[in-house]
């Protein structure tokens, strides 16, 4: 007999069908999801807040609509929400002490779109503080633990970051999908580390309104899901023009779901030579080669390409992102919201508030940002980095003259042990070496699980396409998923 907890293992697509067929109610499903999240919390530490009254009220409303046959795209489906998204009345702290206890009196555009399609709130998920990190170790509530463990080992691994809680929640079958944000790889790297699908659309496809700002020109809200089609449903629901975000794209949202499963025959797939970096494990290279072979077998033409400015993407990012962050985070002054720590005078209060409220990584980035924007340095750093960014975008334009999509590994390693890189900022930053280019260029990119390494840990492949062409990305992503046949799950220990 199928138990309720088996239902949590289903894909979003499959559970949606069961909800519409009234084989399970949204209320039962939501109760089960909250129960599973709470049971996993002591081991995985993936969640920062629950609101069961809200969850039950939303599920009940979904059941009422389902009873009338009126359900939306995500009707009755329990989702987890990264702690960067404002959810009305629910603690939203960006995993930072400076915002501890902040309860938004408004809803982010992305979450209100999800609720508008019938989705049900389950929990807020932990993240690196203000999304600054690649291992979830800078969260004020401590690191999230990856549900995956190396074969025969018991070491706690990182789920990646910054959206580590969302990735862990989806990987452990605690919900059917989750939101994340991707500024340098914060969706795709954790997706790769947890055997989940992670997507960011074109810059501006999803609204940033109501999402705690990190680096405004690089921030991309997007989904985590168990399958490519599920991720397409999520991105479909999250996308669309928002007058409250001046960088929100006015373009019509294509049918992402319909693109999944369409033939990739004849598509030209670029393989960039610059993504073969020194010291990359051979297994990553092997996974990449497998992906190339799968797409060739599916009828794609493989084309060697060059993205010559790739090596400059991370250094450019570590000017642009801290500069924008130092400006965005200036708002946390302890006056109108957030926690205030009094000082001898007004400046002393600002300094104490921010010194006590921000963690070390956030302070480090604010200081880098302040320095590169300070008098005399703007041209040498920020302006130069923005010009290098144009070069990186031009690399993509040149490549997309020849190919329809680009295939790369998602991350330079599998999930690593918690604590193993936290002393070396640059080693940590290098996690994003394959993902950050797509943020700088604003082009769509996704990570799809490709297989396991010899320790039994998941590895992801990344698909990058032209701006506004998420459909080709989903087509290629679904083809990879189909060939990979990735059905592995982390063995339950939590």
């Amino acid at each position, binding site marked *: 007999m199928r138990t309720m907890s088996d239902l949590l293992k289903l894909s979003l697509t499959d559970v949606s069908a069961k909800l519409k067929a009234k084989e399970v109610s949204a209320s039962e499903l939501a109760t089960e999801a909250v129960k599973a999240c709470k049971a996993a919390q002591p081991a995985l530490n993936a969640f920062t807040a629950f609101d069961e009254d809200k969850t039950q009220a939303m599920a009940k409303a979904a059941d009422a609509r389902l009873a009338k046959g009126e359900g939306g795209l995500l009707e009755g489906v329990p989702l987890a929400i990264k702690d960067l998204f404002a959810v009305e009345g629910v603690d939203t702290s960006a995993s930072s002490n400076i915002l501890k206890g902040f309860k938004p009196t408004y809803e982010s555009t992305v979450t209100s779109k999800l609720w508008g399609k019938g989705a049900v709130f389950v929990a807020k998920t932990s993240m690196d503080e203000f999304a600054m990190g690649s291992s979830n170790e800078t969260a004020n509530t401590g690191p999230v633990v990856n549900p995956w463990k190396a074969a025969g080992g018991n070491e706690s691994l990182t789920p990646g970051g910054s959206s580590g809680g969302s990735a862990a929640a989806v990987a452990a079958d605690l919900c059917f999908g989750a939101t994340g944000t991707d500024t340098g790889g914060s969706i795709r790297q954790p997706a790769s580390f947890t055997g989940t699908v992670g997507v960011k659309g074109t810059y501006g496809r999803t609204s940033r309104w109501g999402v705690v700002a990190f680096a405004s020109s690089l921030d991309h809200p997007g989904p985590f899901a168990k399958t490519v089609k599920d991720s397409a449903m999520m991105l479909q629901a999250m996308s669309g023009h928002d007058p409250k975000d001046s960088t929100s794209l006015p373009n019509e949202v294509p049918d992402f779901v319909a693109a999944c499963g369409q033939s990739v025959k004849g598509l030209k797939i670029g393989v960039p030579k610059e993504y073969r970096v020194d010291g990359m494990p051979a297994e990553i290279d092997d996974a990449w080669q497998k992906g190339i072979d799968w797409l060739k077998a599916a009828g794609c033409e493989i084309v060697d390409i060059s993205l010559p400015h790739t090596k400059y993407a991370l*250094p450019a990012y570590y000017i642009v992102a801290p500069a924008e962050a130092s400006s965005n985070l200036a708002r946390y002054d302890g006056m109108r919201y957030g926690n205030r720590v009094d000082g001898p005078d007004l400046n002393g209060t600002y300094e104490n508030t921010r*010194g006590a409220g921000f963690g070390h990584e956030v302070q480090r980035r604010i*200081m880098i940002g302040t320095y590169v924007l*300070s008098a005399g340095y703007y041209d040498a750093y920020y302006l130069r980095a923005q010009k*290098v960014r144009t070069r990186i*975008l031009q690399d993509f334009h040149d490549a997309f003259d020849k190919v329809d999509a680009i295939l790369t590994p998602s991350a330079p390693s599998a999930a690593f042990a918690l604590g193993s890189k936290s002393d070396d900022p*640059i080693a940590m930053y290098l996690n994003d070496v394959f993902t950050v280019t797509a943020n700088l260029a604003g082009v769509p990119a996704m990570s799809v699980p490709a297989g396991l390494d010899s320790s039994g840990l998941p590895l992801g492949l990344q698909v990058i396409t032209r701006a506004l062409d998420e459909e080709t990305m989903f087509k290629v992503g679904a083809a990879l998923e189909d060939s990979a046949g990735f059905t592995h799950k982390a063995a339950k220990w939590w």
Partner: protein
Amino acid sequence: MSVTADDVRRIARLARLAEPEDRVDALVGELNGILNWIEQLNEVDVEGVQAMTTPVAFPLPMRKDEVTDGGIRDKVLANAPKSDEGFFVVPKSVE
């Protein structure tokens, strides 16, 4: 370019961050590590290159200059560390 302990104190002040003295040396090392790594951007020829502003060009949207929101004083004050009689309470800033 490299930063000194005095630079770190100055940057912290500009950023309104209280950095305890025993963090300054560590920050000098960390910031110099990052700044030296960033230096490699000087290798890129950016002569005549425009600074990037947006990945997908579209005209900045205009809207009518009219009030579309408001009348939510209590919501605005709901997360204030200190408020009184419908006002934010802040430290004295003018003598």
